């Protein structure tokens, strides 16, 4: 049975990754899962300098999901390379996708340039869709011209293939996917979080210090599947699908809709072995359904 998938020339031993920001750089969850079993580790967003993120509370629970407003706290690309990439050195079987964030095109490029020489980085995931950043961030991801532009700029600097991570907070995701493709993206990943809000009726105030937060978890899964399906039928570059994947069925659903690989985010928080559990479930499904090659079912539901 073959579970290998290839995206932009990079081969992944299987299509199961975790989603940026939910897994750190893998250190914490390496107590629960063997990172070498994963298709890829996708790191938390990294900026050119350390970011402090938003005030707390940063987390709110909602029905079948959560809101987060971390605000892309990160130690900056320098520390990231020295510490996190070094930690990832020892996991040779898994690929490493570094999620990149910035307030401006210049900041993205600074990170991309710094990562160019890092051998441990197999691919860059460019987060143009985080709803928690006031400048840049969502503005990039919601305007097709800006998406194409930033993609082109990043692509010109990147030494590794680039995956553009799209925001679901748009009228037509296909337009954004096409813009990324036109800008030269090697792949796209979706969905980032949907902007939501929770109000505490007793305190009559927002639950999150940031007022709004990004919604993730099973609640967003049907929207994610729809968007992956739409994009798969709109562009010719591969898709990394994510959003509310919690079970192997959710992962298979996403693959059938057109994702070449899938990322698991929020599910790690309630099941630290979600990634490997889901991988095993997908393998069992393939056996039961006599699917010899995972590539045979990518996007077959039309």
């Amino acid at each position, binding site marked *: 049975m073959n579970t290998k998938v290839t995206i932009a020339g990079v081969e992944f031993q299987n299509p199961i990754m975790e989603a940026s920001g939910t897994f*750190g750089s893998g250190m914490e969850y390496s107590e629960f899962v063997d990172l070498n079993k994963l298709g890829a580790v996708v790191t938390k967003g990294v900026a050119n300098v350390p970011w402090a993120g938003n005030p*707390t509370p940063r987390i709110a629970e909602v029905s079948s999901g959560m809101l987060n407003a*971390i605000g892309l706290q990160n*130690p900056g690309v320098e520390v990231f390379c020295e510490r996190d990439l070094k930690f990832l050195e020892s996991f040779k079987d898994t690929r490493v996708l570094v999620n990149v964030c910035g307030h401006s095109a210049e900041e993205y490029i600074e990170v991309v340039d710094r990562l160019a020489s890092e051998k441990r980085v197999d691919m860059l995931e460019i987060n143009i869709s985080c709803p928690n950043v006031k400048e840049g961030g969502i503005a990039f991801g919601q305007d097709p011209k800006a998406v194409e532009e930033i993609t082109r700029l990043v692509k010109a600097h990147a030494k590794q293939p680039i995956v553009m991570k799209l925001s679901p907070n748009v009228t037509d995701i296909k337009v954004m996917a096409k813009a990324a493709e036109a800008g030269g993206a090697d792949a796209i990943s979706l969905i980032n979080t949907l902007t939501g809000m929770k109000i505490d009726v007793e305190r009559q105030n927002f639950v999150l210090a940031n007022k709004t937060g990004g919604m993730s*978890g*099973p609640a967003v899964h049907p929207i994610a599947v729809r968007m992956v399906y739409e994009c798969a039928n709109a562009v010719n570059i591969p898709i990394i699908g994510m959003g509310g994947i919690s079970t192997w069925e959710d992962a298979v659903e996403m693959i059938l809709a057109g994702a070449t690989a899938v990322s698991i985010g929020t599910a790690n*928080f*309630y099941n630290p072995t979600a990634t490997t559990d889901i991988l095993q479930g997908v393998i069992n499904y393939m056996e039961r359904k006599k699917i010899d090659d995972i590539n045979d079912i990518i996007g077959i539901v039309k």
Partner: protein
Amino acid sequence: MKIKEQAEVIGQKKLAEGVYSLLLKTTISAYAVPGQFISIFSNDGSKLLPRPISICEIDKENGTLRVVYRVVGKGTTEFSSLTEGDSVEVMGPLGNGFPLEPGKAIVVGGGIGVPPMLELTKQLGNDVVAVMGYRNDDLFLADEFIDAASELIVATDDGSVGVHGTVVDAMKENDLVADVIYACGPKPMLKGVAEYAAAKNIKCYVSMEERMACGVGACLGCVCESKEKDDHSHVNNKRVCKDGPVFLSTEVVL
């Protein structure tokens, strides 16, 4: 060593209005130290995030953990209906726990910050003054602190028992001194205790709270502000779940 497993409910009893004591059989007990916490998960598929609850007592011999919690929302309401023989998903032990320092100690708990101090008090040994603050005369766990500590001082908001006021009022009234202070409770209380400690030049540990998602240090959801740049985050933020919940009072902004 972190474990996620189904724990067996050995028993549950109500200690005070809305306050429950839950005894769980779990292998987590083998690794737990006072001041650490566990994540308890809901059975309801719409409530996904863990509820962090501090460890109140550790019985390594019987392989059990005791937690004491207040019913404040949907998750804790669900937990309050657990009965003997039920099982419940738990993860832990989480966080760093209180360092056991030599010398004379004051342990301070306020409200639902009382329970986490019990195992600590026991493990610290005999030279411990416990200062516990309650809303009213519903003095849950007070009898157990009487047994565990050298002395128990009680403060109540309504003045019905002990000192009328906060634990800090009680500490001042008794002019308590020691080599180390440990505290758990609402932030304003921690601030007061930290100021008392600073004034008396006593080393002080505080246990912090924040909304959590992962509970293991991966999501950066639960940070508190640190006075210095943190070694891990490289900004003025520390993760309550991983770097804490116990911090030196001088490390964090209260």
